[in-house]
């Protein structure tokens, strides 16, 4: 059984004891433990249940590739599912619980699936559950969904915070093992700006566990010396607990720093996401040991050989008292030595190779360990823990030669370089048949924006699996035991029966077995991508780190082709999962998106206004009084504006200054109207189309002076329209002398609207606002209440109306003065909804209501605003296309229900019959519809085929189970002659 050894443990501090719980059971560990080490030290071998068969599972690995030992960490809002215990640093008070089991880890009902395993081969679900859609959707699928998934998400919002940061460097080194440290040192000494990132909390990678001498020093001493020098270099930055998650376009790097996962509640951000711009990235991410496929290779206690020695050397944890080693290579013998050094027993090393004569095997043999050559494991004995192994000839079919009792199996099928980072942006690999691994092909690197390489590989990530090779690559010397070649053995025994293949696991988390890959091959899912998707091999949360190459090899074997002919699946970021919290960073809650505020925003908020999002603003929708409904507030605001006076914060209107000798000519191209002839001192309503002919914006254009115009745009439209203008100016008419400036934020704008509007302005005092001095569609500059203003006589409501522009920093002051002056005249503020209703009463169109990107001005009765004199404007050619000039286009009309009710906004008018696709024919739709408190009935606008010629016709608008009948009328419902605005 697994336990803590009395001595040793290079990473733990035995003076600092920590307590934690697993499934509620109190346990103890040491500072420096991973949760995996502490669990194992506490004798907890069974840690989880597999995805499909709910088979009992324990630790396979000691690092990022762990597929089995995933737990729920924390509780309530801090609960986090699917956390790898191997990547979790132990802290005091840690709470972990097992996943995907019910009612308990030891007794899991779901394990019934394992008994029925023959009914659940790869892709079984594609072949059944097809009785009916209802049965699938209501019965089978819900059961599958409940059974699937692993951990449980928190039910509350995440209380922790996350950060994002940028970093720039010449060289980014990913991985702080010997190769990475050496690369960082070499680049650092050369004066390069270097960042070295290490995923774990420790430097040095595998070397301290695997042994040898580097430049005559032990790995620990060499690492200490190297780190010491690196820390003296100001141009080198060392970052622990920081994983290079992925390489992206043009070599940009995303890295993931787990700042405070191990110190929860200390006030620091939990994770920090780094966006790094390196000149080049050196991948020093090491290699991952491969399991071997044999029956029962997933029984808790069967572990990777390297993990077994990691637990012994790093954390002084023995995974078992009697450890059988099974391998196809020499490296695994290091595990046998580590086990022996810890005073534990190695009943045998089972080696698939026939003539084992390497130095490491001989050292093991010299210590009295049996080496069983040409042997394999027929099957592992035990269910929730290893009790022994049945040994067979590797060349045979699995006939048992002998049985050895043991409580741990350390397996090694060789190593695969961690080439992920090299491959994310398309670096190519080549297959090394001798070493049986894919290594980066340095002649086909990922390339960046100049076409040059953006990545390099060193160390094990470059396919160099021995310390001497790694040292030599870095220009150092090393002494280490030489290793004999491995045998490319993927499955034990070579001729394993089907019964064995059905219990030989490749992808542990997803329960993909050798038999599944072979089934996929037999059924024609022969592309590696098909096999992956059909069997789910490599699709678990470890993304196939320990299973992909084995699966490839089995598939290649089944297809009778070589591994490079089969090829790999695509490596996609991230290397290991990263939190969405880190990806979102600080941009949450109030910081999710910036809010624009007008100069009067504080005032609106103080009124308890009801708002609606408009662009990035929050505009007042209405200002309800206590106890008043929104609807009633809107009606009150309208009636008051039409009878007394209302005031509107119009600051959000876009304001673009267009200036220069060619400004008039330019605006004639931008607008459908003629703007060059607008007299100084006058305003004109203008329409803007896109080059595709559709109406895109409207607003009042003001001629400020001989060479300057001020163009008002819709709220939220200013940036878009300004960009549109600049596009044409810079890219098409670059020789025209025109300058534009977006002044939207420079001015606050206040609309004073209603029969008593003039009285309010007169009360403010300072300029002549009479009809004679400031006629309708004119403007003037002056002062009001002592503030410098520009006043436009324009109206979007049909009432006497002044829009007052004032420098934004005086907006609040002027607003207060207007409010104060208006009191005597019964003035009330009104919001966007009252604005909408009043414009609809007047039959004025609204961009976004009457237009939807498919409407041209000609559809809206706006022909008067399209200059016939101009040869060209943006959109003119498009409006000449056959469909745009067709006689039956839907055109703007007013609509009035026969009973005065309000037509449903967006409803369609039906026509006779059905079209060829069986859809009801239509003849028009409602584009705007409101209750008009002015007219005390519903009013609407709509688009109807050839509508203006059909006045008086009654159309039917079904809406749910109701049918509305409405008459086609003129779209202007109020003051058709326009007398009220021009007073």
């Amino acid at each position, binding site marked *: 059984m697994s336990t803590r050894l009395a001595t040793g443990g290079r990473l733990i501090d035995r003076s600092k004891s920590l307590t934690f719980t697993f499934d509620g059971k109190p346990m103890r560990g040491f500072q420096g433990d991973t949760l995996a080490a502490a669990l194992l030290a506490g004798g907890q071998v069974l840690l989880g249940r597999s995805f499909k068969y709910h088979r009992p599972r324990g630790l396979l690995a000691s690092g990022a590739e762990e597929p089995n030992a995933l737990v729920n960490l924390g509780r309530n809002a801090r609960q986090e599912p699917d956390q790898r215990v191997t990547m979790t640093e132990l802290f005091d008070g840690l709470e972990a619980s097992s996943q995907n089991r019910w009612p308990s880890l030891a007794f899991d009902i779901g394990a019934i699936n394992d008994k029925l395993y023959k009914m659940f081969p790869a892709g079984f679900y594609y072949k059944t559950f097809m009785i009916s859609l209802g049965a699938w959707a209501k019965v089978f699928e819900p059961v599958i969904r409940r059974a699937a998934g692993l951990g449980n998400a928190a039910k509350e919002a995440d209380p922790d915070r996350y950060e994002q940061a940028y970093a720039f460097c010449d060289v980014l080194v990913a991985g702080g093992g010997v190769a990475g440290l050496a690369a960082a040192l070499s680049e650092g000494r050369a004066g390069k700006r270097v960042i070295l990132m290490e995923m774990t909390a420790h430097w040095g990678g595998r070397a301290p566990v695997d042994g040898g001498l580097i430049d005559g020093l032990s790995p620990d001493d060499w690492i200490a010396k190297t780190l010491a020098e690196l820390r003296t270099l100001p141009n080198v930055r060392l970052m622990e607990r920081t994983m290079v998650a992925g390489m*992206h*376009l*043009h070599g*940009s790097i995303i890295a993931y720093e787990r700042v405070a996962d191990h110190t929860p509640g200390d006030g620091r951000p939990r994770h920090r996401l780094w*966006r790094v*711009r390196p000149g080049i990235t050196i991948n020093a991410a090491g290699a991952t040991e491969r399991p071997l496929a044999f029956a029962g290779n997933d029984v808790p206690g069967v572990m990777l050989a390297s993990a077994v020695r990691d637990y012994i050397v790093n954390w002084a944890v023995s995974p078992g008292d009697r450890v059988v080693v099974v391998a196809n290579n020499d490296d695994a013998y290091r595990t046998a030595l580590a086990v022996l050094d810890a005073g534990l027993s190695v009943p045998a090393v089972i080696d698939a190779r026939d003539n084992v004569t390497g130095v490491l095997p001989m050292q093991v043999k010299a210590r009295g360990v049996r080496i069983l050559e040409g042997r394999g494991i027929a099957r592992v004995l035990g269910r929730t823990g290893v009790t022994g192994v049945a040994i067979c000839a590797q060349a045979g079919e699995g006939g048992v030669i002998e049985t050895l009792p043991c409580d741990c199996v350390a397996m090694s099928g060789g190593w695969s370089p961690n080439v992920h980072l090299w491959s994310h942006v398309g670096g190519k690999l080549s297959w090394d048949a001798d070493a049986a691994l894919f290594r980066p092909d340095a002649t086909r690197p990922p*390339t*960046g*924006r*100049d*076409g040059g390489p953006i990545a390099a590989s060193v160390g094990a990530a470059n396919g160099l699996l021995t310390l001497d090779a790694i040292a030599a690559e870095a220009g150092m010397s090393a002494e280490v035991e030489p290793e004999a070649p491995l045998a490319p053995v993927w499955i034990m025994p070579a001729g394993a029966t089907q019964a064995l293949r059905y219990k030989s696991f490749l992808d542990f988390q997803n329960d993909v077995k050798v038999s599944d890959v072979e089934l996929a091959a037999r059924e024609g899912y022969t592309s590696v991508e098909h096999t992956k998707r059909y069997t789910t091999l490599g699709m678990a949360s470890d993304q196939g780190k320990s299973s992909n190459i084995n699966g490839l090899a089995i598939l290649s074997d089944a297809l009778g082709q070589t591994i490079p002919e089969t090829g790999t699946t695509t490596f996609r970021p991230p290397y290991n999962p990263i939190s969405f919290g880190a990806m979102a960073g600080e941009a949450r809650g109030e910081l999710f998106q910036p809010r624009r505020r007008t100069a009067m925003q504080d005032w609106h908020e103080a009124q308890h206004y009801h708002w609606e999002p408009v662009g990035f603003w929050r505009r007042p929708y209405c200002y309800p009084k206590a106890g008043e409904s929104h609807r009633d507030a809107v009606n009150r605001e309208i009636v008051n504006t039409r009878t007394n006076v209302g005031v509107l914060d119009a600051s959000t209107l876009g304001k673009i200054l267009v200036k220069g000798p060619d400004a008039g000519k330019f605006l004639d191209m931008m607008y459908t109207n003629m703007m060059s002839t607008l007299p100084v001192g006058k305003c004109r309503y203008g329409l803007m189309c896109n*080059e*595709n002919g559709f109406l895109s914006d409207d607003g009042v254009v003001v001629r400020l002076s001989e060479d300057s115009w001020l163009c008002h745009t819709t709220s939220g439209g200013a940036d878009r329209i300004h*960009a549109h203008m*600049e*596009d044409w100016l*810079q*890219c*098409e008419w*670059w020789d025209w002398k025109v300058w534009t400036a977006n002044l939207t934020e420079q001015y606050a704008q206040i609309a004073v609207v209603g029969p008593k509007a003039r009285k309010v302005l007169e009360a403010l005092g300072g300029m002549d606002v009479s009809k004679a001095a400031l006629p309708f569609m004119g403007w003037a500059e002056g002062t009001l209440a002592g503030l410098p203003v520009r006043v436009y006589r324009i109206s979007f409501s049909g009432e006497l109306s002044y829009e007052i522009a004032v420098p934004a920093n005086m907006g609040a002051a002027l607003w207060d003065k207007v409010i104060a002056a208006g009191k005597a005249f019964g003035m009330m503020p009104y919001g966007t909804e009252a604005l909408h209703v009043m414009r609809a009463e007047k039959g004025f169109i609204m961009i976004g209501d009457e237009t939807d990107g498919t409407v041209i001005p000609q559809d809206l009765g706006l022909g008067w605003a399209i200059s016939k004199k101009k*040869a*060209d404007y943006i959109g*003119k*050619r*498009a409006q*000449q*296309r*056959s469909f745009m000039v067709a006689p039956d286009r839907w055109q703007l009309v007013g609509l009035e229900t026969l009973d005065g009710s309000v037509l449903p906004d967006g409803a369609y008018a039906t026509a006779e019959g059905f079209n060829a696709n069986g859809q009801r024919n239509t003849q028009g739709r409602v584009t705007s519809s409101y209750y008009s408190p002015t007219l005390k009935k519903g009013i609407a606008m709509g688009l109807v085929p050839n509508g203006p010629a059909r006045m008086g016709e009654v159309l039917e608008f079904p809406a749910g189970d109701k049918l509305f009948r409405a008459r086609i009328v003129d779209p202007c419902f109020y003051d058709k002659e326009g007398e009220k605005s021009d007073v």
Partner: protein
Amino acid sequence: MQIIPCPYCGVEAEETELTYGHEAHLKRVGPDSDAADFEAYMFTRKNPKGVHFERWRHSNGCGKWFLAARHTVTLEVFGTYPAQTTEPPAELVEKIKAKCPEWKGWK
């Protein structure tokens, strides 16, 4: 994230600073032109799997539109130049020819 140098201000701009403007060197077709010509101008695109001449605006920077030659598979940026031109600079064309012998030219 891609980086495209702005030929005006010299900034090595990340995509977040830029707005993409699609195919470059389109010739505007105005009123009364042929319907097919107008359709081609508005909609028909080269969309090459290879070297693409395209428009970018340094919208969160100097505000200038510029043109770029970029490879749509490797995403290599061969060069950028001001928008106020009807054809790419000769030396850029030569550079691309040298790097991509299979390239059929920008037209």
